[in-house]
């Protein structure tokens, strides 16, 4: 029974990881860049939602609806941040050494993180959302209501992005640039703009998830790197460029982490997930669902 409870917890949190990883995979697939500042977008999204509520209502406690209303602000703001990050910094190193692209985003990650510490101190913060009853029991399994809402929100964002990529004109442009930037430019797609939109969309989703994380866990300026690394693990697991793969990878990673922290200790989760990653990289470098990720 305990195991079922852990798996349920893991699936609930895993959907958030998956949504963050989907954005990470999008940039990796379309622009061929590992955005090491991706976790910082989660952090900034969390803070945006926090400050909207705090400055709007004077307190970090809020009702569900008010909290949900703050998410579009986080999404919108982070879209702009992501768009500008690509336009001002990343676009200058596209097509150069892989290592340089990593270093630029790592530099951005450090700068954002440190500025956040200067601005908001390193203390963890969180948003409190009150219910009449915090959780409900389903057949002996306890499910916190907020986690369920976050789960639904994460799935909704992931599906929204999937539909956006498949059905809209911009989405098709993004996929075209991903397949062949030169051919895309020939048919009249503004490649630079499309890449920046990709960054924006990816960051926007990360920002929206950040708001949920501010409620169900907490936020602090240095939280970003862990989310970047988790995204990496998930994407490698699911295969680069595969959104369903990333979704399954996220749910699986969440479950594994909850099981490890439930049966062993929460301190070991990072070590276990990374050991899994290294084993996976060595055994099956293309991921379980990947098509053609180069090693």
């Amino acid at each position, binding site marked *: 029974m305990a195991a079922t409870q852990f798996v349920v917890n893991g699936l609930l949190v895993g959907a958030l990881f998956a949504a963050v990883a989907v954005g990470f995979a999008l940039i990796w697939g379309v622009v061929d860049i590992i955005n090491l500042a991706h976790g910082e977008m989660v952090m900034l999204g969390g803070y945006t939602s926090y400050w909207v509520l705090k400055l709007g209502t004077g307190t970090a406690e809020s009702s569900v609806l008010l909290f949900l209303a703050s998410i579009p602000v986080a999404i919108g703001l982070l879209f702009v941040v992501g768009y500008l990050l690509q336009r001002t910094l990343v676009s200058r190193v596209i097509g150069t050494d892989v290592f340089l692209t990593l270093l630029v985003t790592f530099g951005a990650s*450090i700068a954002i993180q440190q500025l956040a510490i*200067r601005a908001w101190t390193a203390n963890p913060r969180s948003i409190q959302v009150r219910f009449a009853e915090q959780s409900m029991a389903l057949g002996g399994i306890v499910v916190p209501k907020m986690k369920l809402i976050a789960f639904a929100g994460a799935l909704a964002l992931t599906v929204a992005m999937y539909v956006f990529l498949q059905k809209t004109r911009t989405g098709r442009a993004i996929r075209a640039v991903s397949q062949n930037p030169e051919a895309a430019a020939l048919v009249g797609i503004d490649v630079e703009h499309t890449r920046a939109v990709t960054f924006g969309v990816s960051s926007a989703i990360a920002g929206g998830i950040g708001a949920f994380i501010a409620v169900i866990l907490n936020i602090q300026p240095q939280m970003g790197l862990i989310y970047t690394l988790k995204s990496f693990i998930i994407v490698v697991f699911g295969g680069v460029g595969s959104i369903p793969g990333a979704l399954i990878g996220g749910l699986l990673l969440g479950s594994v982490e909850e099981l490890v922290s439930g049966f062993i200790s929460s301190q070991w989760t990072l*070590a276990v997930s990374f050991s899994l990653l290294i084993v996976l990289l060595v055994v099956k470098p293309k991921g379980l669902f990947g098509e053609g990720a180069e090693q």
Partner: protein
Amino acid sequence: MSTTEEESDGALRSILPPKQVDWFINVCDHYGWALLLVGALVGASFPVLGLEGGYYMTVLTEMYLFAILALSWDIVGGQTGYPSFGNMAFFGIGAYATAILTKDFALAFPTAFLLAGLLAVSFAGLIGIIVLRLRGHYFAIATLGVLLVAQQVSRILDITGGSSGKILLETPTAETFYYLFLGLLVVEIGLVYYISGTRFGFVLNAIRDDEEKATAMGFNTTYYKTAAWMLAGLFTGFAGAAYSLFNTFIDPQTAYNGAWNVELIAMALLGGSGTVAGPVLGAFGLHTIIELVETYAVGWQLVLLGGAVIVTVIGFPNGVVGTLSEYASQMDYYKHGGMAATDTDDGAEVSADE
């Protein structure tokens, strides 16, 4: 872009003729060993001339420390083309090894120091076999993962003192550490300088430029990569081994410092990665700047570090030494009717492409 570059080149050329830069680089190349000896003597003479333990000695010692770290990173990152984000893992292992051996096992510092280096090398060998099979994004993130896992493990274990770390009170004098770090640095520069002229060094560069071709030529690239990786692990481990006692305190955050890892990459890159002098000069330069910022604007040094990394990567990824030698070789264009210049350009593109 090209027009402005040419204009500024014209102005620059009258102040600093490429010919003289070329001459300067040739002299440095030719008298490398003599320069190293002079540098070592100058460094060693400071305490004799009256530099006493205190702020300035600490800053100089830290400069040597960072130069060791940057040069070690460059053996694998710059010379072999495997940029690692996890070099500080070896540093942490070395640091914890001396801390535990001297405090809990009451070993003398020299013995503990050697054992710590040995431990770091063995760890490097073990990890290297696994991660050196990966390339590009995968290698970089896997090494970052190794660093974070090592940090996490040191937080959990009892023997490392958990997250509160270990306080080390019985330590050698500041002067001992000054000479120890200086000595390590001189030995490492000598070794890397020597290697860069040997077959071993050329194979490392070949792996960086095109690993498949290097394999096709019959070189066992795994052997060369692992050897370079272990050499980097050895010096990084030694640096860490001395650092824990030098700092009199060690905890997971200091031992496995991710920001330092970026800092030493920035140093190697700023100075000119893939060269011998570059990482050392970069370490001296960037550490001076960071030290100044730490004095006059406390708390902003990491913001500056992030900014410095971005500016270096976008502005001049070849670093000071790389940019200078490229500038100097422009003279070849006139000497050889364009061929030599085209050749060097190709070389630069190859290394930038992979």
